[in-house]
């Protein structure tokens, strides 16, 4: 026997879920490179995968935060995903890193920066968007001796907006 009030609540939950499903289907188009090429790693022990989808990012862009967070939140609103793959297994790290470099080279990702400090190598790649000066995906690849980290954000991104977070500078020279 279902009480009337519970019926209403259930209906509310169902419509929430239906809305969510519709919304998810709309944002299905753009897959980040971790989902696209590294999905099999997410199931390995010794590998962590964190995925923040569009809905969560939207939620976070509207949360109450300090005023100084405004730029961060504006950016979060524009993103369709934030995905992190990390490993502290020496063997898996080597594997993931090699595959990532090879994959980026083969799929039109542009290397925009690379740094080497001690035994840590950090590389930044971008996947150009359909419009000029827009970036579809920005990837950071970091490789240490026994660990690696892949960070990807997708959306309709302007690199200048990202650069502005660290310093108040425009980066016209990167997206020429």
């Amino acid at each position, binding site marked *: 026997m279902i009480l009337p009030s519970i019926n209403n609540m259930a209906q509310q939950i169902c419509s929430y*879920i239906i809305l*969510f*499903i519709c919304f*998810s289907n709309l944002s*299905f188009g753009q897959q980040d490179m971790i989902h696209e090429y590294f*999905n*099999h790693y*997410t*199931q390995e*022990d010794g590998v*962590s*995968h*964190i*995925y*923040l*989808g569009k*809905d*969560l990012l939207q939620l976070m862009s509207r949360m109450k935060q300090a005023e100084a967070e405004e730029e961060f939140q504006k950016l979060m609103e524009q993103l369709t995903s934030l995905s992190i793959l990390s490993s502290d297994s020496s063997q898996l790290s080597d594997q993931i890193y090699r595959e990532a470099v090879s994959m980026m080279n083969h799929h039109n990702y542009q290397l925009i920066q690379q740094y080497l400090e001690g035994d840590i190598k950090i590389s930044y790649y971008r996947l150009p968007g359909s419009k000029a000066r827009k970036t579809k995906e920005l990837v950071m690849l970091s490789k240490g001796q026994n660990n690696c980290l892949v960070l990807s954000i997708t959306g309709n991104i302007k690199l200048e907006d990202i650069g502005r977070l660290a310093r108040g500078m425009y980066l016209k020279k990167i997206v020429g």
Partner: protein
Amino acid sequence: MSLIADFQTRVLPVKHKLYRFAFRLLGNGPEAEDVVQEVMIKIWNKRQEMHTYLNMEAWCMRLTKNLSLDRLRAQKRRKMDSLPEKFDIAATTASPERLTETRDTLKWVHEIIELLPDKQKIAIQLRDIEGYSYKEIAEIMEININQVKVNLFRARKRVKESLLQATSY
């Protein structure tokens, strides 16, 4: 509710879908149960993952598929190649004459599906039994939608042909 009680009421119910899937690939209950245990433990170990609602179920099914196929490979019972176009129905245990008995008919269909290549078997399980959409099946099988359709079409075609052959004695 305690942590464990929550796991019981919220995560464990999905076990039936995973079990049916593992059972389809492995052909026996105890092994299928082992795979589902492994999957559940992996979910627990990776609980910091922040997947969307839909991705999570596909992730579990995909993991079930991969663990089941790993087991099969380890046992060297089957390969991922397709069978030749015609296979020998006489080699199966159910005989055409007794098809009017329901129990044997179902056994017959089961045997037909058992003999399908893994990809076609999986397509049948995910579409005809679990009712997933092509997009969801593609995500679980890690192939594209066209390949899903091809595998499903071929699988159903073989089932149909076998049933026709069996009923036209």
